[in-house]
């Protein structure tokens, strides 16, 4: 279990992490979601005792990470994939890590096998592709067979097969009762992997709820209505107390399902050309939620098709 209370990190006058209160429970995959620069990596570095919080605390299994008698056996972490010396072999990298925490060395070959790097164990990691580096990072995280697993952007650079593998692995680790905390900036990926979601933007928690709650609350849906008499239809629907938005040549209606809307319009003798239920994707929901907190957003060109 990871518990952060009032966790804050300030760089100069910029608050990278701004008073986060989060509890990451065991037995489920918790997704840590936010746009780039939202404070995800900084938070993870503070969990691991690499960065010192400006204020607040973060504990793992009830104590600060640096106070663990053998931290790698308690918390396995994938940091940036390239936290490696390019001249060292994968096996040697795992070997020194194992030795530093009294992990039996045979475990090194076990995790190499687990991530599928046995055949390249003696190759220098400088020659590894991004995906292989990522696999090695995951091997490092699992080396100590830890009850808490923290993965920072684990699917970066992985091919579709690798992405599915990470997803399966994460779910399996959680099913074994471990605490699994995964950061990502991809909502679509988290939707498939996480049971629970913590969304942050500009260092603040924007949402902390189960995946299904998030979907129900944020993935809004509406009914697209096209008609040759849009003004009349809009009037009619508004009189029924529905929320109607006039968008270009269509009406977006919320509050009633397509069948009921169709019947209403039909009874009044108006024509309909289209009646469609539109669900906004989770990605859209995430974008909407974090819209105010994206640091480096690209300007949408004026007049660009939407």
């Amino acid at each position, binding site marked *: 279990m990871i518990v952060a209370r009032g966790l804050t990190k300030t760089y100069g006058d910029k608050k990278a992490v701004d008073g986060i209160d989060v509890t990451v429970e065991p037995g489920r995959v918790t997704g840590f979601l936010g746009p780039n620069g939202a404070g995800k990596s900084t938070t993870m570095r503070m969990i691991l005792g690499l960065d*010192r919080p400006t204020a607040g605390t973060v504990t793992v299994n009830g104590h600060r990470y640096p106070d663990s008698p*053998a931290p790698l056996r*308690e918390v396995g972490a994938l940091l940036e994939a390239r936290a490696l010396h390019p001249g060292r072999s994968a096996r040697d990298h795992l*070997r020194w890590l194992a030795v530093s925490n*009294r992990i039996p060395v045979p475990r090194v070959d076990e995790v190499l096998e687990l*991530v599928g790097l046995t055949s390249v164990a003696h190759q220098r990691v400088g020659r590894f592709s991004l995906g292989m580096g990522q696999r090695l990072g995951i091997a490092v995280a699992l080396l100590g067979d830890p009850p808490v697993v923290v993965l920072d952007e684990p699917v970066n650079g992985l091919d579709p097969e690798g992405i599915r593998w990470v997803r399966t692995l994460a779910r399996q680790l959680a099913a074994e009762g471990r605490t699994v905390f995964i950061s990502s900036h991809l909502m679509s990926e988290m939707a498939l992997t996480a049971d629970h979601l913590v969304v942050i933007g500009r260092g603040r928690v924007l949402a902390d709820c189960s995946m299904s709650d998030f979907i129900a609350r944020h993935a809004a849906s509406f009914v697209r209505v096209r008609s040759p008499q849009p003004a009349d239809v809009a009037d009619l629907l508004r009189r029924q107390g529905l929320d109607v938005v006039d968008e270009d040549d269509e009406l977006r209606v919320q509050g009633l399902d397509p069948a009921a809307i169709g019947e209403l319009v039909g009874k009044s003798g108006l024509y309909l050309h289209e009646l469609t239920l539109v669900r906004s994707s989770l990605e859209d929901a995430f974008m909407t939620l974090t819209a105010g907190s994206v640091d480096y957003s690209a300007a949408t060109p004026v007049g660009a098709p939407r």
Partner: protein
Amino acid sequence: MTVTTTSRTVTLDPNRNVPGVRRQGFPDAVRAEWIKFWSVRSTTWSTVMLFVLGAGLTVLVCATSAEWLASGKADESPASFVTWGMMFAQITAVVLGALIATSEYGTGMIRATLAATPRRGTVLAAKALVLSSTLFVAGTVTAFAGYLGGNWFLDDHGVGVALTDDGVLRSMVGSGLYLAVLGLFALGVGVLVRHTAAALSIVLALVFVVGTMVFLLPGAWGEWIGKLMPGNAGSGVATPVSFNPDLLEPWVGFAVFSGEVAAVLLVAYLVFRRRDA
């Protein structure tokens, strides 16, 4: 590349490792640093270069100078020549010392290191021990090899120095000690600046350039600054008779040098302990 489906050979006991496991200690950190140190090629290469420069150049310069030293026209002592190559072997000690710190910052490895061993004092001490013991052994062996090879040519011309002569045995062990402490100096600077090129420039400039130039300073205080510069103070112990007559007594100088390096390491530790990785 094929993907192994996750075949779990382990089952989870969340309390298996806490608190039953024995706390990781200093010996574990030393073993880890030892593996790290020797599993990159730069270490082997630098150590080979240390030997080649240190012993090889000594033999070469003794072979070419023996006749001149024996001619009676020489204004230098033959004993100054039996550790001649160690002046250049210093460079490799500086490189090894800087790299053991800066290579971790250059690659981001430092985060893996500190995640594995969160006690930063332990990490720094383990690095210092691995580095200094390696340099002490390599430096002493190299000095001996240079002496044996070089002195063979000097003996040939009747100007050889015996191991029992004043300062000769001291300079062999002194070479190891000097390189070890010099390496620690580079380690301390490396931790402070976190950048290989910067660390190398600073240490090499201080030892080779500034250390020589300060003797141009006028007056007694200029002479004292010269004597106290790290390279000048420390290197005296590594040669039986120094080319530079203005240095401190060998062991006094070495004590001064060690004190200076200890101060740098202390500052490095204080910064390292507080700094975000």
